[in-house]
């Protein structure tokens, strides 16, 4: 594991821990730059435009230019805002997303903290985001921000319920909350992924497939809702609430929200991937096995995990630039009237199947 590797290399566990903690940050920064560029390009090509073209080849340096610009921006705090909370809120939101990265297994060798309760941990720390958003909305002393924050809190908390139900399904089938173990259980080919029934033996595997598929869809919808993306981007609905809870933010504090949003997109995608789509496992087997180079395997796993995660990030973008936005009561109706009952019945059926 990577922690032991660095500890041996440097001779100090503290230094090693710091490096391990910094690695996801590097990943987040690189990923956010890429995702930001990707979002512009995806939206542009969907809308018959070219998107950024000037800075670098097809504008690939545009996010970096934007970062430089945003660093130079004046940090404005409104006069009547609660200064302390106002400054703390973006940090808290970002910390929520960043902490979730600790338990994400990028490959068998690279997982920040191999927690036994990894799934629950991610759910728990990503709830800190709600507190950050509410703080931002309240501290801005702005009505749009307040409405956005309250909407956001209601939305994220509601959509956690179907997520938890689906996670329970996976726990029942796999018997573990550990994300690495979960990924290991899905090794081999894509036939062993939990969306195709996992490594369950016999007819049960085939009986599980439709319910796993429903679970996957429900999980993905609620995870899109949790990361406040269109069609569920009511907290920051620009046609109603200007920019929602981050209306008053500018400069680097605004960039924190941007980082958090993109990081969160990856976290929810990673969770879906780890639970249903084999985690870091390759769908076909490894080149490292084929040519007998064992150290190549973790790198390949990292590649597969990132590709799968980015694919679902791309799907989120795709949805964003295609669909209109729901209204707040319809959003709640979708969660409480459809997703939660479906997820619950799904849970009952899967439990029943597993008892048989």
């Amino acid at each position: 594991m990577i922690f032991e590797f660095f500890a041996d290399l440097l001779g100090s566990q503290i230094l090693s821990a710091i490096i391990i903690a910094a690695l996801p940050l590097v990943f987040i920064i690189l990923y956010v730059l890429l995702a930001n560029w990707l979002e512009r390009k995806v939206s542009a090509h969907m809308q018959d435009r070219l998107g950024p073209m000037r800075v670098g080849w097809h504008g690939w340096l545009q996010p970096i230019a934007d970062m430089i610009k945003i660093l130079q921006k004046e940090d404005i705090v409104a006069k009547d805002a609660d200064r302390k909370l106002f400054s703390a809120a973006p940090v808290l939101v970002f910390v929520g997303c960043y902490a979730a990265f600790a338990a994400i297994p990028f490959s068998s060798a690279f997982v920040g903290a191999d927690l036994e309760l990894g799934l629950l941990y991610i759910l728990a720390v990503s709830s800190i985001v709600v507190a950050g958003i509410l703080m931002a909305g309240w501290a801005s002393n702005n009505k749009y921000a307040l409405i956005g924050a309250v909407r956001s809190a209601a939305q994220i908390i509601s959509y956690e319920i179907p997520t938890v139900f689906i996670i329970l399904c996976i726990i029942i089938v796999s018997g573990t909350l550990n994300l690495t173990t979960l990924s290991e259980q899905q090794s081999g080919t894509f036939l062993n992924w939990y969306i195709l029934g996992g490594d369950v033996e016999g007819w049960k595997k085939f009986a599980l497939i439709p319910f796993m598929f429903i679970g996957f869809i429900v999980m993905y919808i609620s995870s899109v809702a949790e990361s406040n993306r269109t069609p569920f981007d009511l907290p920051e609905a620009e046609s109603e609430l200007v920019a929602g809870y981050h209306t008053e933010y500018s400069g680097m504090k605004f960039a924190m929200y941007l980082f958090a949003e993109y990081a969160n997109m990856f976290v929810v995608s990673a969770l879906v991937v780890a639970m249903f789509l084999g985690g870091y496992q390759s769908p076909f087997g490894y080149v490292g096995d084929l040519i007998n180079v064992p150290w190549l395997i973790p790198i390949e796993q990292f590649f597969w995990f990132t590709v799968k995660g980015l694919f679902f990030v791309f799907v989120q973008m795709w949805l964003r630039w295609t669909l209109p936005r729901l209204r707040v009561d319809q959003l709640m109706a979708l969660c409480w009237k459809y997703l939660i009952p479906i997820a619950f019945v799904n849970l009952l059926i899967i439990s029943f199947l597993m008892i048989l």
Partner: protein
Amino acid sequence: MALKTEEMVLNMGPQHPSTHGVLRLEIELDGEIIINVKPHIGYLHRCFEKHCEAMTYPQIIPYVDRMDYLASIYNEFGYAVAVERLLDIKVPERVEYIRVIMGELQRIASHTVAIGTYGLDIGAFTPFLFLFRDREKILSLFEMTCGARLLYNYIWVGGVSHDLHPNFLRQTKEFINYFKPIITEINNLLTYNKIFIERTANVGILPLDAAINYGITGPNLRASGLKWDLRRDDPYSIYDRFDFEIPVGKGWMGTVGDCWDRYYLRILEMEQSLKILEQAIEQIPDGDITSAIPKRIKPPEGQIYARVENPRGELGYFIMSKGGLQPWRVKVKAPSFVNMSIFGDLCRGHLIADVVAILGSIDIVLGEVDR
């Protein structure tokens, strides 16, 4: 124990992404539910009517452009019709056809903006850019004819400023053939989208009796179910020669007169405009375009009210002359101004998100509301 709650006043605008200009809405909220909306207008007031009293009749035309800047040609059209009726001018056949072609192209251009920005209000960004791309093609046709893309000063009293470009009719035909599939595409992308229907059907229902009482005109009135189109019911120019239908709201997805009806009616109207365009291009005669333009416009003492069917509704000019070179009084019946006046009643009891949906569906242009 009951929680103590209080109402909140939310100021939407004057600077806000979806007020379609500079409009301030004072919204009284109970949670997210609207108790009352008070629109405050006048941020774009440019003293149009006062200006008119100090200018000669032809000088007013460029000012007319700037009222409803999304349908400038039609504003000029209405003004020209009014002054011509006051002067008893009969304009040449070719001019009438050019005006109808331009007017219908402008109607399509205006409706594309209305539909596109409506999608934007609901949260769908992509249809907006698709439709703006197509509007550009219409603007290029205008540019080819008179050199301007937004404010044309094209239709003059008694004629038009330039004859059509030799390529104009061919390119317009190409545009018509290009645009027909686009309407289907927009229908697939936005109109029949489940979320879009959820957001707009049964929202902001405008009953017919209220619509008539409030003087609502244009697509908003027709969406409430009355077959009333000035092109048919009070014909001006040569609209009585063309064969077209007047779509009315039928409550396709919900109730008659809801936001979806108002939205969809604009799409149907674009189809009818294409139909009129096809006929006009077939029939347009050759001829002179400047012969009826008067050298000096000095109407006798009297008054006239003339009206045309603007993309937004009934655009009327009340011109009062005391025999001078300048009009004594020009009063505009601006469809957006009148349509806006019912907005507060429509919003009551809805959610904040619906304010945007309703405002977009009545399709106002603040330049015309404030004049």
